[in-house]
């Protein structure tokens, strides 16, 4: 949304925007209540979402939480929470571009550096499944595309 407003400001310099150019803002206003509800819901159930994802991931492959001799469960939880919070803001502001620029591109390189692509791919798949159980369908439709974007970015081989 903020990126789109920035784009609009540049494109319409010195003139009024057309109806078509303003459509995104009208869509945003229409979706605003749903976005706030979704944001608040994510905040409320964050701990449960992460814990359920963790247990499911652990059941699938406990080796994902061991790096060398170190248990990286706490690190995994911190990382997942961080992504989830950026996703929540992107839902609220309808701004996937800023999410990509401020979080996704950086985190992608860090996950690759640790060779965590497989675990990431599964994390953001499982998280989507769990979110669909907790959120209404329209709420999940706002969140899951961003998690899928994350899954593809972090899970890609290179």
């Amino acid at each position, binding site marked *: 949304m903020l990126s789109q407003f920035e784009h609009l400001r540049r494109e319409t310099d010195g003139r009024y925007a057309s109806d078509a150019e303003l459509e995104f803002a009208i869509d945003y206003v229409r979706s605003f209540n749903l976005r706030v509800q979704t944001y608040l819901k994510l905040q409320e159930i964050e701990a449960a979402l992460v814990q359920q994802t963790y247990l499911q991931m652990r059941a699938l492959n406990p080796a994902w939480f061991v790096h060398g001799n170190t248990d990286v469960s706490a690190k995994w939880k911190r990382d997942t929470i*961080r992504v989830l919070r950026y996703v929540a803001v992107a839902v609220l502001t309808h701004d996937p571009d*800023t999410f990509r*620029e*401020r*979080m996704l*591109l*950086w*985190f992608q*390189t*860090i996950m*690759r*550096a*640790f060779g965590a692509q497989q675990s990431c791919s599964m994390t953001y798949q499982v998280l989507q499944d769990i979110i669909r159980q907790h959120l209404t369908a329209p709420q999940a439709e706002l969140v899951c595309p961003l998690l899928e974007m994350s899954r593809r970015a972090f899970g890609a081989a*290179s």
Partner: protein
Amino acid sequence: MTTVKVLDTQHPGKRRHPKKHNHYGFRDFFHFDPEQGTIVDWNESYNVLTTEDFIIGLVEGLEEEVGEASAATMYTIGCEWGQKDAFFFEKWFETEFERNIRQTNLMFLLETWWWPFTAQGWGRWEVDMGDRQQGFMFINIFDSAVARTLGDVGKPVCFLYAGLFAGFFTELVKKQLSCIEIQCYSMGETYCKFLLGGQDRIDAAAFWFKEGATARDIEKRLRAGEVLR
């Protein structure tokens, strides 16, 4: 009486979130101070915005001044920059992550080193350490600022980058390393490729390159253990 104003150079975003690591978005990384007329980045370096004309002026001006030696000059500038940056990096990395660079996952360390360069517009990179045990490695640069500016001129142009990698990695591994660009966007390729290693390997690659070998040929010959006799 003279008043001395102490400038506060610390990035306000960093002051608020000193432990934030994903600070490479344009508005996060740079702090524009209109009063001071400065652009300070997250690591408290001063930045100057330049146009492509500046890069053209730098490259062509140097060529006019020193002719063919301009490539070596750019490389040497890059080396010194890389060596200095290695010390600078070590300092900010250890402050930000509270960990010694020698006790850190190497790929993570390298990605962290390059991120400020990405944010500053030097391009994204990819490090291929598959041949590290053999004493060489490759670095790919996508969207080199120099090559993108100069366009297809039919020869490599990223000597500054080659020097930067040589200087930085020499300091990092405490062993003299050299670097050569064996494929460049300015040769019509889609990205730039650098070979980093000991002088003997770089000399061999430079010789093969002059003889018309492609980056792929050079990779194959190095992996086959070929050297210059």
